[in-house]
């Protein structure tokens, strides 16, 4: 019986192994980026029924976050403002603008304005705004510089790994309480702030839960 296979077949297995190795590395790298919240959630910027511009209101007009998200420091849920809050000003300012039609309709008829939800936790996760906001964690740490966004987009991956990272090193994310709603605030010099933060994590006993009962119930 003669040789079934050509001589080149002898080097084939080595080549196959190399190809296989390269293939697995690319697939794993692709999955770790494209199939995780770093990609699937960051950058999600849906068009809202009313083109509300945070940059104009929060940054330029300097409206504080709590004017609209009134109960962020009292309830676990940071409420989206009701039509009445918008109409406080917009019954006078741009009271005929076509963009604000849905607000006016909602204000009269009582039908809610269907804002598209940008940041959403799965149903088995119970995130509480009040306890974060009152303990030194600012809006910017999770929502990014919303005050500079003309249309709100999903800035942080908000995966469990991301939350755990902050729960394990709270000292990197707390700031003096008075600056919580000042999204542009940056510490004068980083080391002093880092030292301050470590001291205050201890003095305020900021010990965020790392076990499941913290967020899952």
């Amino acid at each position: 019986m003669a040789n079934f296979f050509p001589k080149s077949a002898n080097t084939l297995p080595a080549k196959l192994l190399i190809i296989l190795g390269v293939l697995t590395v690319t697939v794993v790298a692709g999955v770790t980026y494209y199939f995780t919240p770093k990609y699937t959630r960051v950058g999600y910027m849906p068009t809202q029924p009313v083109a509300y511009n945070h940059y104009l209101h929060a940054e330029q007009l300097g409206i504080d976050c709590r004017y609209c998200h009134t109960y962020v420091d009292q309830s676990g849920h940071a409420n989206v403002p009701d039509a009445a809050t918008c109409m406080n000003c917009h019954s006078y300012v741009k009271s005929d603008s076509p963009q604000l039609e849905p607000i006016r309709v909602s204000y009269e008829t009582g039908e809610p304005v269907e804002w598209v939800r940008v940041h959403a936790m799965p149903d088995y996760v119970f995130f509480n705004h009040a306890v974060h906001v009152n303990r030194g964690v600012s809006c910017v740490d999770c929502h990014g510089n919303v005050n500079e966004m003309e249309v709100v987009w999903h800035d942080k991956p908000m995966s469990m790994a991301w939350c755990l990272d902050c729960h394990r090193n709270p000292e990197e994310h707390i700031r003096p309480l008075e600056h919580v709603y000042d999204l542009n605030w940056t510490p004068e010099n980083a080391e002093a702030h880092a030292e301050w933060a470590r001291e205050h994590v201890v003095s305020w006993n900021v010990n965020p839960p790392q076990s499941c009962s913290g967020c899952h119930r």
Partner: protein
Amino acid sequence: MNTTKDSQYHPDGGARPAVLEEVRPANMPRRPIVENQRTFTWITQKVCGIVEGRAPLWWWVAFVISSMVASFTVMGLVYLTATGVGVWGLSHPVFWGWAIINFVFWIGIGHAGTLISAILCLLKQKWRTSINRAAEAMTIFAVMCAGIFPLFHVGRVWFAWWLFPLPTSNAIWPNFRSPLEWDVFAVSTYGTVSALFWYMGMIPDLATLRDRVRSVYEKRLEQAKSGFQRTFETAYYQFRKYFYGILAMGWRGSNRHWSNYEMAYLLLAGLSTPLVLSVHTIVSFDFAVANLPGWHTTIFPPYFVAGAIFSGFGMVLTLMLPLRSLFGLQDLITQYHIDCMCKICLATGSMVGYAYAMEFFIAWYGANPYEGFAFVNRAFGQYAWAYWIMITCNVISPQFFWFAAARRNLILVWILSIFINVGMWFERFVITVSSLANDFLPANWNYYSPTIIDIFTFAGTFGIFGFFFLLFIRFLPLLAFAEIKAVTPQADPHHHPENGNDDGHK
């Protein structure tokens, strides 16, 4: 005349002391491994003939039946996954039922294969050569059937991959303290190593098949009558050429390769022995690590391993006896082989019987009322019927093997081998269900009975096992004839048929 040649290799190099000449060791008549002094070509032709000839009618009938039976499991699992674990008979407090029993049953059967090829290889038991390939195939298919249950019995099958320590964006890891986590590693390692061991053992035989492909093609071409048959033959020839060609990895029988091969085979056997013992120990940890009375005993690991070997040899006997007569392999699987297997069944069966007795003694000796009750309840409680089936099948039926007459009556041996596996299934049933149903707080006691889905899903696994085993018989060599040849008398380089002793054994 040839002794001078030996002296050269005397360890300390000096001349052999003369006195050794007078010493004539008593010639203990060792029973031949291959009877009727069969030649190498006869052995090769006999084993390769099974693969190269046309599939006999009974093979097709068996294949169709086992595929149909296998579909029960597939349908059962689809309905289970779509609807929920509630379709099985599980309930509070018996949260584990037939699925776990079937898992331990199949993984137990699997262990005999590795035992024959590994442990008997280390013990230099030559008679293992004619049954180790079929036993290892049985191992791999049994592990496949076993693997279905731990995967599909979980509530959310689509998240079962969380059991593997893979990084996810949830950044949470599995728990290495859990025996189920150990199971994941144990069973997958066992499956992989058995497959490697089986494949490596098969490489020389595949090379032989590869080399015969051409001649077989030419012989079958003559018998081909119609044009269609001819084209089929050529296509079949191409398939077999590449199938055996690739799998044989270019093996050419070089003795330099044989020395590496022998070393690798020995090491794999050395590795598989502790592997077998550890895998069934870890499977027994699924029960022993729990604090249920009746489960939490330290006798479980050796008890489960003995039980596994016992049920494994039962299955080997159940499979090999019919094949032996169907394929006429009486000369290769001789009565000596059957005797050895029966004796091992007798030994392990008695060990398992001893373990049952020991459990009662330990429960009595430990004076823990919960433990004591668990075992009295096992023998006289709600599941007494299962307990006594177990005792009759596991402890009483192997005692027949004391008598050579029984061992020679192959019909009886075959029937007893089936009893062995029935008994072993009930042993796992009794352990799992009777301890769960009546444990610490009497208010939780409940009676467990399976549903029709349980029964069909389990019955289907025999179909799956048969399906793969028949494919194995059809495409791969049933016996490791390279090893058989190595243990035939004429394979010994120092053997000279013409000198004094006629049976030619040195």
